């Protein structure tokens, strides 16, 4: 579904991603772990098409098409979803209105009619129930005066509504207490199908207790230095990243 080949990217002239290779198949959950500043969030932003980053080299192939030149909204239309680490607020725009606009813009790009109000309402009810979201929440201004947990839950709610092919969860666990973490993870698991894929970015292993990855990658200084199964995450939790740094230097 997603293939990243030799991806190099810079921000303000500084190289952050230094040759990333990654391949994700439908139905899989991949986790990317790494210390602060290793380039995890940059990778998420570059896949989503954030133009603050400049891609110097390499390709991003999604659903057999090269999307490297596409704008962020075109990538979203193709089914890429990014759950933001720091979701921004848009005062005066309700969660409902925002999601409705988003869904209809995506449908429009696919040549579909706008979703009827009754279908919209039905889907919202279903998904908010699934994620344990109070419906009062839906009339609040997007992310305005939301707690950290509410913001993250709102991201996952949007993901549930948009049903993307590829969901990238950028540090979705940061700022969540254990109960909120469980709710969010539970939601993500319920939304898993054989056709969609998830890329989880985190620096803590604990999220991976709830969203169990098929593959774990370690990102260090802009490169994936090691990939393995879920046990790799446990090892990182116990031993930190230093052993990998030495390994990289020695290699």
């Amino acid at each position, binding site marked *: 579904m997603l293939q990243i080949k030799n991806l190099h990217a810079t921000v303000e002239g500084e190289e952050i991603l230094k040759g990333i290779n990654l391949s994700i198949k439908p139905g899989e959950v991949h986790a990317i772990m790494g210390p602060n500043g290793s380039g995890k969030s940059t990778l998420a932003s570059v896949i989503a098409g954030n133009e603050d980053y400049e891609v110097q080299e390499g390709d991003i192939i999604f659903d057999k098409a090269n999307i490297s030149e596409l704008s962020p*909204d075109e990538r979203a239309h193709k089914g890429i979803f990014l759950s933001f680490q720091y979701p921004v607020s848009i005062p*005066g725009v309700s969660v409902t209105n925002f999601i409705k606009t*988003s869904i209809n813009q995506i449908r429009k790009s696919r040549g579909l009619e706008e979703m009827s109000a009754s279908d919209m309402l039905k889907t919202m009810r279903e998904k908010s129930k699934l994620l344990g979201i109070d419906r009062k929440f839906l009339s609040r201004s997007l992310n305005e005066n939301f707690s950290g947990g509410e913001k993250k839950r709102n991201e996952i709610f949007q993901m549930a509504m948009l049903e993307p092919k590829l969901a990238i969860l950028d540090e979705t666990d940061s700022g969540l207490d254990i109960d909120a973490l469980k709710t969010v993870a539970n939601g993500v698991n319920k939304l898993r199908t054989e056709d969609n894929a998830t890329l989880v970015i985190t620096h803590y292993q604990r999220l991976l207790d709830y969203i169990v990855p098929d593959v774990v990658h370690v990102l260090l200084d802009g490169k994936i230095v090691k990939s393995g199964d879920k046990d790799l995450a446990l090892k990182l939790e116990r031993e930190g990243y230093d052993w990998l740094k030495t390994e990289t230097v020695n290699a």
Partner: protein
Amino acid sequence: MAYTEQELEKELEHKEYEYGFYTDIESDKLPKGLNEDIVRAISKKKNEPEWMTEWRLEAYRGWEKMQEPDWSNVNYEKPDYQNISYYSSPNSSKPKYDSIDEVDPELLDTFNKLGISLEEQKKLAGVAVDVVMDSTSVATTFKKNLAEKGIIFCSISEAIQEYPELVKKYMGSVVPKNDNFFAALNSAVFSDGSFCYIPKGVKCPMELSTYFRINESGTGQFERTLVIAEDSSYVSYLEGCTAPMRDENQLHAAVVELVALDNAEIKYSTVQNWFPGDKEGKGGVFNFVTKRGLCEKNAKISWTQVETGSAVTWKYPSCVLKGDNSIGEFYSIALTNNYQQADTGTKMIHLGNDTKSTIISKGISAGRSQNSYRGLVKANSRAKNARNFSQCDSLLMGNKCGAHTFPYIEASSNSAQIEHEATTSKIGEDQIFYCNQRGIDEEKAIALIVNGFSKEVLNKLPMEFAVEAQKLLEISLEGSVG
């Protein structure tokens, strides 16, 4: 392509005026210039009684001695008042039409282009439209319906003929004829406008609506509106404007007077979309308006305005809170783009005890425009427990525009409570990216953010009007993306 503010600015510059067309209808026009003879000629053309002619002449004599104000934060070449024609009327064999079928088809076509076809309006949920085009009323609907309740809704010219006592009593009672330079000019030469009278205890069953439109080249527009709400009555009045594209500046100096007697309530909503000038700042309407309302005991006046047009706007809808417990409200969205300049706000004059006022102003500036809020809150020494809350928010797009806030507070009473809050923000690239990531393109994202910013005010407009206003905000910011 990256979404940058520079690109946004470029898009906005290319936004053409959507309603730029011109209807060629023969006009009945007076020669250019202004003197006592012209004032008399206007009055005569309208078959006015002598008291009206005298009133106009007094206003003219006052105006002659006045200076055009220059304290506002706008720059423009002052019009040559002797090079303006002060009266033009669509040429018709009859002064009034009995039915729409008799109206000039080209005129109807113009209204259709503006999306305000009368047929459609008639069907709309109880909106009576008094259409003012180039100063003469051409059609009035729903009049009978209103007449049954004793409501008078007609042109001001008709009111002068039919209801002289009401006009004599109230015209100039809120905005005196020599109140200011532009009000005095209007009082001398006003061509037409609307008159509305709601009797005691009557709740007007429909939104009253007037569409103004400037048409003939080189003519000024001097509308005069008078709304009188008797004791315990209620009326909601809508005013909407569009104008065809024009190369030279056009002057508009309207006067609106509202009288809310004991326990009455008046809601006055405006959507203004006059030609703002092209992207070089050429052309565009000068809008110098005096709007004021008087509240007697327990009365309430709410001004809601959405201003997207005009090259220069100078406008301060105000409330004089004369009666105890009276309430004044001002909700405003002013959007400026390209080289537009707006200096707008309100005055809340607290004279009675326990009077309350609320001011919510939202300014949106784009291009090289300048957007100023100017407001005065005044609590008289005898006004006990006067309260005011003001909130002025500005949203900037790009680095070449400006937003300014000039709040004036004069509290002569110890018990007055006056609060003022102001914020300035920019549309962030992070907000745009967030929307993009959800599949929403730049243009739609901006519309969404601007609508969110303006929501508190949009919510104050009647339903159909709010939809129209929302569209107008989108149109005014739309670029030629793609």
